């Protein structure tokens, strides 16, 4: 037997390729989505820039009164603000804040939403009923206003970890509003899969409830959960900026894109760069995240993946 020969042999004189995994197929589809690719590149660049913000020669919080309101120049590519602080440096540090809020919110959302959705979907009955009413109630409160009230109250409350206008406080505030969406999604997956034969088979074999939940049913939801989490990062960044813009989010001197925009309002026509750059960063981040989410949705859609197998 020739060692170069395809081990799987040939069918109709064509070599049989080893079967591709779902992940490979999804990745192939993702790469074909131009928006998702562009979004990934831009987001990677933005993340790298904020990670290496420390390389900037300027300090984000130390003022330099001699250089107030400098227009963008080679020295200060984004100009300087009313306290002479370099706006590019502040924008990059602000990005750290916004992106960490985004990731933390998704962390909180998943760690509450997935267990609650799983329990509601798997056990059904009165547990499901109670949990769904709590979810409906949370989602029925007008969201932006609820966020403002939560932020106004939590920053004064003396709770462990959640203190003042910290990143953690804002992440908790946003997390309160985002977990129900994921919980609903996970519950829906459980409802569709719970009655399938392979779950019944696992039950018949004596698998424990945690095993069935974690190993048999939950993996069916990975696709939608990944998509929802990606979009959730964008949503969290948008709402954090909004809260900070309104003065209920991250407080100065810690820069965040939202509070920088709040700061820019006063001298909008005279020093427009104060408003343009931080907003542009929010916009670029969110549009990248949304395109990535869109690409992932296409790529992880099982029907579309299978459609490609001819």
């Amino acid at each position, binding site marked *: 037997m020739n060692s170069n020969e395809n081990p799987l042999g040939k069918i109709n004189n064509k070599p049989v390729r080893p079967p591709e995994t779902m992940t490979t197929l999804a990745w192939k589809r993702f790469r074909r989505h131009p*928006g998702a690719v562009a979004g990934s590149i831009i987001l990677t660049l933005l993340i790298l820039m904020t990670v290496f913000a420390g390389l900037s020669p300027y300090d984000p919080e130390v003022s330099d009164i001699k250089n107030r309101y400098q227009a963008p120049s080679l020295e200060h590519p984004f100009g300087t603000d009313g306290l002479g602080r370099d706006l590019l440096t502040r924008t990059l540090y602000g990005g750290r804040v916004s992106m960490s809020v985004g990731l933390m919110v998704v962390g909180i959302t998943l760690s509450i939403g997935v267990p609650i959705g799983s329990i509601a979907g798997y056990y059904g009955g009165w547990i499901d009923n109670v949990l769904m*009413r*709590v979810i*409906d*109630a*949370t*989602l*029925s*409160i*007008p969201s*932006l*206003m*609820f966020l*403002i*009230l*939560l932020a*106004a*109250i939590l920053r*004064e*409350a*003396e709770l462990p970890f959640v203190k003042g206008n910290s990143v953690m406080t804002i992440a908790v505030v946003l997390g309160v509003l985002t977990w129900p969406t994921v919980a609903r999604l996970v519950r829906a997956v459980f409802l569709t899969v719970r009655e399938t034969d392979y779950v019944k088979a696992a039950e018949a074999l004596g698998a424990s409830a945690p095993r069935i939940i974690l190993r048999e049913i939950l993996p069916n939801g990975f696709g939608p959960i990944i998509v929802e989490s990606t979009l959730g990062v*964008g949503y969290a960044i*948008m709402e954090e*900026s*909004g809260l900070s*813009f*309104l*003065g*209920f989010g991250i407080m100065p001197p810690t820069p965040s894109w939202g509070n920088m*925009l709040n700061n*820019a*309002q006063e001298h*909008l*026509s005279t020093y*427009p760069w104060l*408003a*343009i750059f931080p*907003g542009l960063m*929010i*916009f670029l981040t*969110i*549009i990248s995240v*949304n*395109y990535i989410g*869109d690409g992932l949705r296409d790529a992880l859609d099982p029907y579309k993946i299978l459609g490609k197998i001819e």
Partner: protein
Amino acid sequence: MGTYIVRRLLQAIPMLLLVSIALFALVNIAPGGPMSAYSRTNRMPEEKKEEIRRKFGLDKPLPVQYVVWLVGNDWMQIDTDGDGISDGNGTRLGILRGDFGFSYKTREPVLALIADRLPNTVYLMFFTLLFTGIVAVPVGVISAIKQYSGFDITATTLSFMGQAIPEFWLGLLLILLFYGTLDNPFTGEALFPSGGMQTLGAEFSILDRARHLFLPVLMGLVGWVAWYSRFLRSSMLEVINQDYIRTARAKGQTEQKVLYKHALRNALIPLVTMFALDFPYIFTGSLYAELLFSWPGMGRLFYNAATSRDYPILMAILIIGSGIVVLSNLMADIAYAYLDPRVRYE
């Protein structure tokens, strides 16, 4: 259908009670709770604080306070002058009887404040939604009919941008462009005013009102159009591939009739549902637009109340808002069943 509606309404009651308990608990976990609005200055003597606490029943346990807030205290003896002795019936009717209390700050009844601001919000939202429909429906339909055409790709890209642009940043850019940079070539004034509902001291005129509406409506419009046009596009695409559209074509209907009589009418059904879900915004309004353009509506009322910790106003707006959300969800389902005879509720 009737029993379905009744059941849904009955289900809404425990849910709204849950919302009210959550909000009430929330307001009371902040140190000082509702008292913090009174004792901003620490100079207020302790006896005076104690008197206020007794007068407003804040010395009672939280569950009692909650019940009073909910059903009032006109049926029970309370300490009306804060001297520690119960001496008369209370005056509060409770939110269930429409008594949302008084603003801590201005002492005006909360409902009167809301009634004062609500028309302005409805006014702004009406025009925002009207123009959303005027723009989003044709864009969505053309995008779907000419899928992957230049128009569709442009519209889809713009819609992605519209959904990613922060509303408040868009507002700042609009002010920068139309108020800060562009001038009216005839009068030399800014092209559009930067805020308010009409020019101060001027008589009401439609033109003046339109000029004041332009920027806040445009600001709100972008996100709505982005969302609705994409939604209608996918709904329309789904309908176009249905069997009954093929049947209509096979019968020899003109393409015009197929698209507008058969396809569009069905594609609009989910849009009606979506609109019913978004209806609460007519009550809560756009907070950012109202703040940036000094529009005296509900959003601004809420924001100002939040900065001064005027809890009765915050609670009232949130509770009424939740009620409207619950009713709108029900309306959405009813509208769906009514418009699409295939849908049946039991």
